[in-house]
C-alpha cells in the first residue's frame, strides 16, 4: 500500500509538469488550430538558455528567469510571424512538418551551442525531501506542481475576466466574429505564441531542474504532452491539467508495477498506449469539443 501511495504521489507531481507543457500546446491549438510539435524543442532550448545565463554568465536566478522569459516572448512573436503566418491556409501536413522540422532545428542549434552532453541545473530549489506519512516527495516536485497549478489558475482568470483574454477566447471560437468586433486575429495569434513559449520556458526550467539540462528533454513535447493534450481535449485548459495529472498517475503507478516485469522503461510507453486507446475510443478527449461533420 505504501508503495502504491508513493507511485501515486510521484505520478501526480510529475503530472503537474506534463500539464504545464500541455497547457502551452493547448493555448496555441485553441487560438490558431496549430499543433505545435516544436514545443519540446523550445522547452529544451529555453532551459539551456537559463542554464547559460545562470551558470556561464553568473546572473542571479531571478534575473536569469526574467531574461529567459523575455527571450521566450520574442521567440514566440518571431516564430509566429515568420513561420506560422505564411503557412495559414495550407494543408495540415504542412504545419505538422514545419513544426517538427522547427523542433529539429532547435535541437541542432542546441547541440552547436552547448554540445550534446547533459549538465546539472543551478541549485535554486532546496534539496530536502518532504515526508507525508510514508510518502516522500522531493521539493522540486512540489515547486513544479504548485507553479503549474498557480499558472493554470492565473490563465483561467485571465481568460475569464480581462478584455485581452476574452478577445483571445473569441478568436478561438469564431475568427469571423472576432474580426467583425475589431479584434486583430493576427495579433492574437502572435500573443498566444508568446504566451505559450513563456509556458514552455517555465516548464522547461522546472523539468530540467528535476533531471538535468539536456537535448533529450525535447522529447517530452511529443511523448508526454501529446497524450496529455489528447486525453484532456485539444481545446480545453482544465483538460490539459486534468490530463496531465491522469497521465502522470498512469505513468507513475503503471510504470512502478510494470517496470520490474519488462526490465524498466515502461513509463516511456504507457502515455503513448494511452493515447492510442483514446484515439480509438474518444478522440475528442474528456473536455474537448466533439465535432459533428455535416455534408
Amino acid at each position, binding site marked *: 500500500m505504501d508503495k502504491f501511495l508513493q507511485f501515486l504521489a510521484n505520478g501526480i507531481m510529475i503530472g503537474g509538469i506534463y500539464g504545464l507543457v500541455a497547457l502551452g500546446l493547448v493555448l496555441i491549438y485553441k487560438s490558431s488550430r496549430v*499543433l505545435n510539435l516544436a514545443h519540446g524543442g523550445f522547452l529544451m532550448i529555453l532551459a539551456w538558455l537559463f542554464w547559460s545565463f545562470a551558470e556561464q554568465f553568473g546572473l542571479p536566478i531571478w534575473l536569469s528567469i526574467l531574461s529567459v522569459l523575455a527571450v521566450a516572448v520574442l521567440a514566440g512573436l518571431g516564430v509566429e510571424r515568420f*513561420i506560422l503566418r*505564411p*503557412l495559414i491556409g*495550407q*494543408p*495540415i*501536413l*504542412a504545419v*505538422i*512538418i*514545419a513544426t*517538427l*522540422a*522547427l523542433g*529539429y*532545428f532547435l*535541437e*541542432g*542549434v542546441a*547541440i*552547436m551551442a552547448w*554540445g*550534446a552532453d547533459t549538465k546539472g541545473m543551478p541549485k535554486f530549489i532546496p534539496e530536502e525531501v518532504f515526508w507525508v506519512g510514508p510518502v516522500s516527495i522531493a521539493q522540486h516536485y512540489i515547486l513544479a506542481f504548485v507553479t503549474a497549478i498557480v499558472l493554470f489558475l492565473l490563465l483561467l482568470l485571465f481568460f475569464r475576466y480581462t478584455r485581452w483574454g476574452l478577445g483571445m477566447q473569441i478568436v478561438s471560437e469564431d475568427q469571423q466574429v472576432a474580426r467583425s468586433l475589431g479584434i486583430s486575429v493576427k495579433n492574437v495569434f502572435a500573443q498566444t505564441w508568446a504566451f505559450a513559449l513563456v509556458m514552455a520556458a517555465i516548464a522547461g526550467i522546472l523539468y530540467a531542474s528535476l533531471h538535468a539540462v539536456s537535448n533529450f528533454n525535447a522529447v517530452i513535447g*511529443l*511523448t508526454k504532452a*501529446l497524450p496529455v493534450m*489528447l486525453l484532456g481535449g*485539444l481545446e480545453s485548459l482544465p483538460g490539459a491539467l486534468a490530463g496531465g495529472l491522469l497521465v502522470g498517475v498512469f505513468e507513475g503507478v503503471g510504470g512502478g508495477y510494470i517496470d520490474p516485469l*519488462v*526490465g524498466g*522503461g515502461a513509463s*516511456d*510507453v504507457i502515455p*503513448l*498506449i494511452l*493515447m*492510442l486507446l483514446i*484515439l*480509438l475510443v474518444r*478522440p475528442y478527449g474528456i473536455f474537448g469539443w466533439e465535432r459533428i*461533420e455535416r*455534408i
Partner: protein
Amino acid sequence: MRPAGTYDTSYAQDMAIVRTKAQWIMLAAFLVFLIAFPHFSGRYWTGVFSLTGIALIAVLGLHITTGLCGQINLGQTAFMAVGAYTTAILIGKLGLPFLVALPCAGITAGIVGLIFGAPSLKIKGFYLAMSTLAAQFIIIWIILHTEFLGAAVGLKVPYVSIGGFVFDTDIKMYYLIIALALIAGLAALNLTRTRAGRAFTAIRDNDLAAEVMGINLFYYKLLAFFIGCFYAGIAGSLWAHYFRYIQPLQFTLKDSVWYLGMLVIGGVGSTVGAVLGTVFIKLLDVFADYISPILAAAFPLVRMNVTYATGAILFSLVIIIFLIKEPRGLAHRWQIFKASYRLWPYAY
C-alpha cells in the same frame, strides 16, 4: 502541358509513360549512367546512391500513403524497422532464401501498418498524425525491450544471396538496390493510374465526396496504409542487408520526419516529386558531410556531434523554406521549366 498540334492518335500512345523518342533516348542514357556509375565514381558515391535508393523506396511508400491518399504517416522508419527485423530473423535465424524473406518483410510491415492505420477510419489530420507518431515510439520501444530481437545490442544480418549468387560487395548491393528502386518507382507511377490510385486521390481531396461516389473508405484507406508500409518494409529489408547490422536506434522519428520532408520538397502527390525530393535531400546530406569538418574546426566544443547538428539545421531550414516559398515543391518547378522549354520561344 503539351504545345498545340501534339495529339495522341492511339490508346497505346495515350497511355504511354514514355512518350517521345527524345524521352526514350534520355531514359536509356540514364539507365546506362546508373549501370556504369559505380565503376567510375568510387566507393563513397556508390554508397550515397545506394542509400538514396533505399530512402527512395521508403519515400515512395510515404508518397502513396500521405501524398496520394492524404493519410499522414509519421512512423515510416518504424515500419522500416519492422521490415528490417523480419528479414534479420527470417534469413539470419531461420535461414530462408532472400526472395522469400523480402516479400515477407514487406507484408509484415504492411500488417503492422494496418494496425496503426486502423484509427484512420475514425480520425484524420492531427489525430492520425498522433496515432502514427505513437507507432514510431511504441514499435521501437518494443524492439528495445525484446531479448529475441537483440534488444539494444541489435542483430547481425548476412549478405543477400539469390540462388547461390552472393551480393557481397558494395557494387553488387548497389545494383540490387537500384533495380528494386526502379521497380518500386514504376509501380508507384502506375498505381496512380489504376482504380485504387484514383480512389486514393479522391479520398485525399475530399473523403466525404469520395464516399458518396461509392468508394469504400475502409478498404482504400487501409489499402493505402498497407502499400505504403509494404514499401517501408522492403526499404527496411534492404537497409538491414546493406549495413548487415541493425539496431533500434537506426530507426528514429527524425528520419521519418526527413522522409516526409523529402516528400514535401519534391511536391506532395507527385511521383516525380518524390524522386526529386529524395535526391535533393540526399545531396544536401553529402553537402552537410562536406562542410561539417570545416564547422568542426570552428566549433571545437562540439566536434563529436557537428555532423549531426549541421544535418539537422540544414534539412529543417530547407524544409521550412520550401513549405513557405514553394509549397508545391520541386515537381511544380520542373513542370514550369518543362512547359517553358517546350513552348520556347513563345510564351504559350
